[in-house]
């Protein structure tokens, strides 16, 4: 049995029919073909699937698609204005070589943006490291991810995002 669901993803209204058990990440990837959001585990530990739901970061593998009914969802695909104008967090990741294989990156970036906002654009290294508890990366050793987030915080403030 399928149930209709509708939400706004990256500013565009979308709808579909899903099983009750369909996760938000499955809806994004398999129904909408938006494969930027990744699945790296089955225990909600790795954070590769983080998206923003109504402005808050959420592991989209811990939420049913139906729970996002009517919500405003932002994914990694919805951050950049254009290839030339990335979000300051994306730009900071690029500038600081904060990604290697790229698999954890969408979740890292989405978590990081939420982190910067929740901390009112003021972060120190210890806070960033503590707040990254829910995002695993096996490539970078976190060093450059931490650097990127610290660099992005003032850039986001300056850009008003």
């Amino acid at each position, binding site marked *: 049995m399928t149930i209709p669901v509708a939400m706004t993803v990256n500013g565009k209204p979308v709808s579909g029919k899903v*099983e009750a*058990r369909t996760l938000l990440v499955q809806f994004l*990837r398999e129904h909408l*073909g*938006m*494969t*930027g*959001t*990744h*699945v*790296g*585990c*089955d*225990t909600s*530990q*790795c954070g*590769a699937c983080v998206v923003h739901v109504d402005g808050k970061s959420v592991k989209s593998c811990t939420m049913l698609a139906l729970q996002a009914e009517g919500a405003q969802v932002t*994914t*990694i*695909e919805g*951050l*950049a204005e254009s*290839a030339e104008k*990335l979000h300051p967090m*994306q730009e900071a*990741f*690029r*500038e600081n*070589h904060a*990604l*290697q*294989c*790229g*698999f*954890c*990156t*969408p979740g890292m*970036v989405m978590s990081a943006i939420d982190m910067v906002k929740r901390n009112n654009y003021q972060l120190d*290294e*210890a806070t*960033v*490291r*503590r707040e*990254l*508890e829910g*995002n*695993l*990366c*096996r*490539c*970078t*050793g*976190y*060093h*450059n*991810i*931490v*650097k990127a987030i610290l660099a992005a915080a003032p850039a986001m403030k300056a850009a008003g995002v």
Partner: protein
Amino acid sequence: MTAQTGIGARVKRKEDLRFLTGTGRYVDDLPLARSTYAHFLRSPHAHARIKSIDISAAKAMPGVVEIFTGKDVADAKVGSLICGWVVKDKHGQPHKAPPHPVMAADTVRYVGDPVAMVVANSHDEAKDAAEAIKVDYEVLPSNVDLAKAFDGGAAQVHAEAPGNLVYDWEIGVKADVDAAFAKAAHVTKVDIVNNRLIPNAMEPRAAAAEYDKGTGQYTLWSTSQNPHVLRLILSAFVLGIPEHKLRVIAPDVGGGFGSKIFCYNEETMVCWAASRVGRPIKWTAERTESFQTDAHGRDHVTHAELALDKEGKFLALKVETIANMGAYLSTFSTAVPTYLYATLLAGQYTTPVIYANVKAALTHTAPVDAYRGAGRPEATFVVETIVSKAAQELKMDPAELRRKNFIPSDAFPYQTPVALQYDSGNYPPIIDEAMKMADYKGFEARRAEAKSRGKLRGIGFSSYIEACGLAPSQVIGQLGGGVGQWESAQIRFNPTGNVQVLTGAHSHGQSHETTFAQIVSDKLGVPIEQVEVVHGDTATTPFGMGSYGSRSLAVGGSAIMKAAHKIIAKGKKIAAHLMEASAADVVFENGIFKVAGTDKSVPLAQTVFAAYVPHNYPLAELEPGMDENAFYDPANFVYPAGTQICEIEVDPDTGVVEIVNFTAVDDFGNIINPMIVEGQVHGGIVQGVGQALLEKAVYDKDTGQLLSGSFNDYAMPRADDVPSFKLGYKVTPCPHNPLGVKGCGEAGAIAAPAAVMNAVHDALAPLGVSHVPMPATPLNVWQAIHGGARQAA
């Protein structure tokens, strides 16, 4: 080329835009029309006989397309998965090679061994149906304990390997070593368990396949580090599909660390079944499956002894290791604890005689194979642990003891007693720089300050050597390796002047699209934005050996250099024709051909155009086109070396270890992109720190269940487990490859465990603690301090 994009520049990565905007294309992201989805039913037992499998109820489940069991695969005469490296034991006999069925037909040998594949219209339907398959198992005794594998009473894994012994192998002359020990003023002994690790690349393994009935062509997308090698194995040994009828594509791959080198059951099954199902099949591992079935790493039990004279000079090293192979021999498993391990036991030192004996064991656990560093971390851990312990016993400064025994800077090339000939190196300046950066002089003051806060501070050294840049093919052949170890490259100019660089190496995080483009841009003077690196597709790239063993730049980059030289040589002839000069008088600088001593010049782009539109062209002597390929087979391994210094604080009340300072100084030869090299070192160090402080694969000794089977149970390093790092470089260029480069991909992981553990032991020495098992978890440390009676798991 301009300093901003050429060799040595911190060029920002070309691959980043797609990864940062969610447009990377990993295997699971592929949209395949009419695709089906596979799910594997796996053994819940470590060892059992399959009495029967009943798929009738499952077949009737909604959405089920087909179900295959091990019997179907056996009936279809699918070959065994292979181990591609024949190690000869100390009597010259090849290692025991039990079969490795793609799916178990009669016996399962580890928890996770696949017994059936369900193909359905959706993944959920496949998974639901798998639950309806009834397997009647007769549970058999199992053994997951490496230390007990050779006990007479341990359960047999394969009849083909009596006593669970795969091989009993040795290197070095035991009598010489014994003679040196007889003269020793001091002998230091260590017993080491190198903990078993689970690689956990963030992208789980995945495979998708389709079959074109009209052409008989199979296409397999796989999370592979070496698509051509995978194709070769599947074609020649397992599936019998002619090599030209199988296209293997490894698109964006989310990390590998060794675990994606090997030919696995699932990708084999998906490929095999695609023609039978008649629709594409997709499979992506759930993380639990990654834990259970990705080839694990390390897992050694070692006893080592170091003989020293009264001045502290090393006289001899003796090592006995047993290495866990798991339940089946994975693709390169046999080479890891032999040729990639024991040949590195000289370390950076002049130890004149070395003997190592390695016994490989079968257990009822997942296969064990190469994981970042592959043998070299194990060797470094043995050598650097025993050297630091010797310093402690002799009350010598650990840096001083190392320095006293370093291979002298003027002794290269240096022949070690364990087969390898180090091509280059200069170790003393590395340790000096590391000690300066780590403020070694100020350590005792920091230790005293920490003590005033109730903390135990320790410092640890690890001076590693590694052999990478795999490898000279003839050496590999002599040692039993089943493949060549060259690399290929093709530089293909388009008529409009931009370039495709096709490489047989594969990038799964290493940044080849940037580094390789820098090389071509630098050498040929083409703007970097006009250089596109293509990899990972057997249909478009020349046959290549892939990426592992820190080989991509040293071997793959060298192949690119060779191809670039061919381009220049051809361009010179065309330019000479266009300028009506002799080719001998033409020089090439910054993308422009010039006639020496004149103002005549022709840019490379013009020769390219002339080559594709050969209206004014020496067609009688020269073929049209500008497209050159090259294969490069290295003359030797490359030998990166370095020193890491780790400083930690232990809270004696809780056993928690905090890394407060971490310095790494490396010699990677010439560096193409320092930003990318630093990233490789950071990541490597954290994998090494993970092994030292956090990670351990644990099987229940009674049931054989994998207890550390999820991210909830297996402690991956997280951002707040590690500090930021201080990195430094010293450069001795590699003398035998055209870029003068060594490898940087594994160094961090090779050196770090010993640096961390030596620091822990240094911190706890005042309490009389002589041994903390790795990983130094709070429990292990606390028990070491407080003499806990219960053995930590």
